[in-house]
């Protein structure tokens, strides 16, 4: 393994070592030593990942190519070799860094958080278990990040699910917690069911479970006109390839809490707040998006549309429900679901880079807000109801300020002309820009594609429109990009081949030259009616107004206004161990918005260059845009967006403050006026109730039927046959044998006996009788001898 791979693999294994150590010795280490062991482990991982990141950014294309070794054989399924290896590319590196960095912050926070928590239940300390699970989680999550095959992804996928289960159920003495844990795991398993079937289809059609290999074979199959892409060969008018992509995406639906499997995430807030921050906001739930990014090359246009629609539905439902939540963690949970929906939408419309960029920025600001809420909850003695808070800014200034950073970031606040903004301003707006492009810019899109090579298309685009002033962050980052990143397009072609790491298909020739028909057909066949694409743009834009509203509502209710519950207010406090990580994350939010993160993601997009169905849309002038074969969208999209969402955050904020500025009175009136709608939202569109009746009830009925069948029919038949055998044996034994056969035997005996009795009668022991008999007999014989001879 190359040094960078070694850093990463060691970085994965250190948390595992921490897990093993804590699992065996955690109880003895006690509080808070066990917590610090975990912090140490993840900090070491973080250090290694920083080193890897540093080295990676200082490597040229050839060096990066050489840094990737493997894959290694893990097992054989039939005759197919299943491999594992490190999926070493820019995306992995930056994801790895993000996960370890945020984890470190959260682990430190956890030590502070747990310090104030009674961790004894029935006099049994569970303190070390918490950090044991956290270590296991980090191991699994990092394994997921570096996984280079669908199989390894699936394995780590399930392991993070396990950790999520264990951590949601950390307070398992509460029934609600253990139920939420179970719900999370089983809901995820439903998604995994689809994922397994998808894996099966990949294996059948592509005979390879490694990401690179499957992508290569997928492209070859497309080039060869395989029936895989024939709608007639699949079900319901969708080609097998589409089904494959949609089923693989099912796993992401579960893990990223997308509609219709989103129901577990709000309940998952039963876990300790740091867990909610780490797993259920920043990292694990984003794994679904990460997975979608990794399998993006296997998604047909129809499957991409499916992804986009699911994302759009999710972000809408969740944003609406978030408006009426009163539990601070539930607001954040629903906002997480909604933001994940944005990412999925981005994936679906082809904004690969933007979606992942949003993932990264979101990870920072959502972890920030969750930890902030943890600080609030902890400071307020486990009060989670925002209606009882208010005015906390005096007591928790740092928390209040950092939380506001998160609110601004998620709201996409920024000043369009000045190119200043935070988080969502760049990432979410970029997703919307691409959605706009897909809705309204399709003709341009097709035109761009009709030119043979992307480099050409790029050139045309540049000549046509001219290098407009960059509106997004990337221009600012240019100075941070090493020289090797910014090469002329011509050289990029070869570099993209090189940087595609051992992927046999990623030869130096651009994709279009190898199979031009494929590329054009892939793009020209944008499925679905046009109104749908327009909806995929308009609805998220509307929701971009709702997001700032509910986030400002939460912030205002918590920190601003007058204290509504003096008991809560009087006890409120914050502690350094908990707010320092908040500061780090706030800085991280800022840095991730501007520097390093987006360019690395854009570099990671190189791997997409092998996809037949490429709808990679770029915005701005990322130095690496030419690497891949995506179509750079023109800045008209962004310009069009400024009136649409540029000031959404202002409107949302103003509305929220207008309603909640003076407490809850106005809001209560509004809720009363809109009673049916409010009730619908309060009950989260009745999904839990629906699933409870249909799915849980359905399974309960099935199990009753099955077991009844087993008990009464199958076993009944067994017992019946036993009974029949006994009846038969009784018949043959008692009736036939004892009655008839034995009766015959006994009858013979009885006859004999009777005869004997008859015969016995004369034999009474008198000698004279015997003599009489003897004499009579002799007489008969003599007479017979005398007269019988005569004849």
């Amino acid at each position: 393994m190359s040094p960078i791979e070694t850093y990463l693999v060691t970085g994965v294994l250190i948390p595992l070592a921490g897990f093993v150590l804590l699992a065996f010795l955690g109880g003895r280490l006690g509080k808070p030593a066990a917590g610090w062991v975990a912090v140490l482990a993840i900090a070491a991982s973080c250090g290694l990942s920083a080193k890897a990141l540093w080295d990676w950014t200082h490597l040229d294309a050839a060096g990066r190519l050489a840094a990737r070794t493997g894959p290694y054989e893990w097992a054989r399924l039939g005759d197919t070799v299943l491999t594992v290896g490190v999926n070493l590319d820019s995306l992995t590196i930056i994801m790895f860094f993000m996960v370890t960095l945020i984890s470190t912050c959260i682990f430190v926070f956890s030590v502070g958080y747990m310090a104030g928590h009674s961790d004894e239940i029935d006099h049994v300390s569970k303190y070390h278990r918490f950090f044991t699970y956290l270590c296991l989680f980090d191991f699994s999550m990092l394994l997921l990040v570096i996984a280079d095959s669908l199989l390894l992804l699936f394995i780590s996928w399930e392991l993070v699910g396990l950790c999520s289960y264990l951590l949601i159920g950390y307070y398992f003495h509460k029934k609600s917690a253990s139920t939420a844990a179970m719900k999370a795991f089983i809901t995820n398993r439903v998604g995994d069911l689809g994922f397994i079937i998808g894996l099966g289809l990949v294996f059948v059609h592509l005979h390879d479970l490694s990401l690179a290999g499957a992508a290569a074979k997928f492209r070859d199959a497309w080039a060869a006109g395989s029936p895989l892409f024939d709608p007639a060969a699949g079900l319901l008018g969708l080609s097998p390839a589409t089904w494959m992509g949609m089923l693989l995406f099912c796993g992401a639906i579960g893990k990223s809490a997308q509609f219709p499997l989103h129901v577990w995430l709000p309940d998952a807030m039963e876990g300790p707040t740091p867990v909610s921050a780490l797993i259920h906001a920043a990292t694990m739930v984003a794994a679904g998006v990460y997975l979608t990014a990794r399998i993006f090359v296997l998604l047909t246009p129809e499957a991409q549309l499916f992804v986009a629609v699911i994302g759009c539905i999710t972000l809408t439902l969740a944003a609406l429900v978030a408006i009426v939540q009163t539990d601070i963690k539930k607001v954040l949970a629903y906002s997480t679901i909604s933001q994940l929906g944005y990412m999925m939408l981005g994936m679906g419309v082809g904004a690969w880079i933007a979606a992942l960029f949003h993932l990264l920025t979101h990870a920072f600001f959502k972890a920030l807000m969750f930890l902030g809420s943890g600080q609030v909850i902890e400071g307020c003695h486990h009060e989670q109801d925002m209606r009882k808070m208010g005015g906390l800014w005096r007591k928790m200034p740092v928390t209040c300020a950092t939380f506001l950073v998160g609110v601004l970031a998620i709201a996409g606040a920024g000043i369009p002309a000045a190119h200043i903004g935070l988080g969502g301003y760049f990432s979410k707006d970029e997703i919307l820009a691409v959605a706009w492009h897909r809705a309204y810019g399709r003709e341009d899109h097709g035109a761009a594609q009709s030119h043979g090579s992307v480099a050409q298309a790029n050139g045309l685009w540049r000549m046509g429109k001219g290098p407009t002033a960059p509106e997004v962050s990337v221009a600012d980052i240019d100075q941070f990009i090493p020289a090797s990143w910014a090469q002329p397009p011509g050289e990029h072609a070869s570099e993209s081949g090189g940087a595609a790491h051992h992927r046999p298909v990623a030869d130096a020739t651009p994709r279009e030259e190898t199979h031009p028909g494929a590329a054009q057909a892939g793009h020209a066949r944008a499925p679905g009616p046009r109104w749908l694409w327009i909806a995929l743009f308009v609805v998220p834009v509307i929701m971009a107004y709702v997001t700032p509203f509910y986030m400002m509502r939460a912030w205002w209710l918590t920190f601003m206004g007058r204290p509504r519950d003096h008991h809560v207010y009087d006890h409120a406090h914050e502690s350094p161990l908990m707010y320092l990580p908040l500061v780090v994350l706030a800085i991280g939010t800022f840095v991730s918005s501007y520097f390093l993160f987006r360019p690395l993601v854009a570099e990671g997009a190189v791997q997409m260059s092998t996809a037949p169905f490429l709808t990679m849309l770029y915005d701005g002038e990322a130095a690496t845009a030419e690497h891949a074969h995506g179509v750079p969208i023109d800045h008209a999209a962004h310009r069009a967006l400024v009136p649409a969402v540029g000031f959404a955050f202002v409107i949302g904020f103003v509305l929220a403050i207008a309603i909640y500025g003076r407490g809850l009175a106005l809001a209560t009136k509004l809720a009363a006026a809109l009673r049916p709608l409010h009730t619908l939202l309060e009950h989260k569109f009745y999904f839990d109730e629906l699933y409870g009746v249909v799915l849980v009830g359905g399974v309960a009925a099935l199990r009753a039927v099955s077991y009844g069948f087993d008990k009464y029919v199958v076993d009944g038949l067994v017992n019946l046959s036993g009974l029949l055998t006994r009846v038969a044996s009784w018949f043959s034994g008692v009736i036939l044998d004892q009655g008839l056969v034995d009766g015959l035997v006994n009858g013979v005996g009885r006859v004999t006996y009777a005869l004997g009795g008859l015969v016995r009668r004369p034999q009474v022991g008198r000698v004279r009788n015997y003599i009489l008999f003897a004499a009579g007999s002799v007489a008969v014989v003599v007479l017979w001898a005398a007269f019988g001879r005569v004849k």
Partner: protein
Amino acid sequence: MEPGNLLNWLIFLPTIGAVLCLIVPGARAVKLIGVITTGATFVLSLGLFQHFAWWDATRDVFGSGYGQKLYEVTKVTWIQLSGAPIEYFVGVDGLSFPLVILTTLVTFLAALASWNFEHWKVSRGIRGYFCLFLLLETGMLGVFCALDFFLFYIFWEVMLLPMYFLIGVWGGPRKEYAAIKFFIYTLAGSVLMLVALLAFYFYAPAGHQTFDLIRLATDPAIQAAFGSALFLGLKFGPVMFVLLYIGFAIKVPVFPFHTWLPDAHVEAPTPISMILAGILLKMGAYGLLRISYPILPDAGTWAAWGLALLGVINIIYGALCAMAQTDFKRLVAYSSISHMGYVLLGLAIMTPAGFQGAMFQVIAHGISSPMCFFLVGVIYDRAHHREINRFGGLWLTMPVYGSLATLGFFASLGLPGLCGFIGEFWVLIATFSAEQWSWAQPMAILAATGVVLTAGYILWMIQRVYLGKAREEYKSFPEATAREIAVLAPFAALAIALGILPQQTLFNFMNGTLHQITNLFPAAGTTALTVAGALLGR
């Protein structure tokens, strides 16, 4: 064939121990004999590893064809018949090797689990228990090592009787019912097997008559004769396959022959449950792989979809039934039925990948299910009941035990990284990719729903038994003892090892032989016949 005496020692060492059990004075000495004998057998069985050194690239472990490389072979004439002798023919190959190791290990751990015999609420003494226990081990090892059909049959019956008494004498309240049910079921199956055994002998052409399982599978003359013969006017192959199948299916057990299993498990003492689930169930799968498929490959093709369907029914139906249970042990028993469905499904599709998955599932289940049964036994020893709904919070009361239980049940659930996953995954993917069967993909999708159901019943059980508030009546429960941990730890370690390194820990030991068995099959698709047509001899 490499001659050797190791297997003879393995098979009959427990018999010697059984005799000793009858002689030595004192209960403690009997227990010691039992544990030492099974332990020695286990250690001895490790000697087989020398033959399967896959890490030694210079070694040809599996040979060129089925039955070409057998190790520790003893082949002597036992009973001289007019046509061919009945032989004492034992040997081990990649198919039986993992099962032999599993048998000796599980039996040893079950003997350890029997150590608290005096606390059982039973009326009969320990002497008979350990004597029969050791005889049982002889029978089981014999079944896995025998390569002569007649000898196989004898060992099959040898194993049956001790089991009957172990359940019927040392069992729970309904032990007589359970024991008789078990006995009659298995006996019915073995009678059908006997018919097949005799038919194999008499339907072979003159001069080729044999009970040798390897020759039955590889002798072209015998195979040709079996291919064309008629049995009572029906095709020989399918009839024999069905007869054998019923015999083996009862052991697996396959729906609808499964209802003896929950009863037997519920009534059997914990160590016997461990053996029953860990090894006895595997004999059905082993029998199919050793006898049915190599000797009657055409019939296997004919029966494929039926077997696969039954496998899927087992998976789903077993899981649903498990969900309905309130008796902890009955739940684990039904989960066994569900898990063994994957074995049947993997076998049914008759591809190398399917066989690999099935065999892995056999071994994985042989590790996870004894562990689960012992986990149930641990709390049964303390609580003297098994009502799931009456438990709660045990993870708080007994943290170490709770953690091991979580691991064991997650292994059973098929969590990646643990042994249960590999078997299920291999079977599912193999079924998916069995393109010669048009029904394979729908079956695979149906079978995959088992993944969700399994998670459902196991997590629900965990919630009710281990999570929640610690109940007053269980707060005094002592943590798992050193002996209990010693029984659980090897299972736990193996569950992890097999889950992470399936190739090195298992596949490399058996894939060669499994491939050889699939090589005996005719080219796929050419022999697929309709049910009616095949049965009518057309």
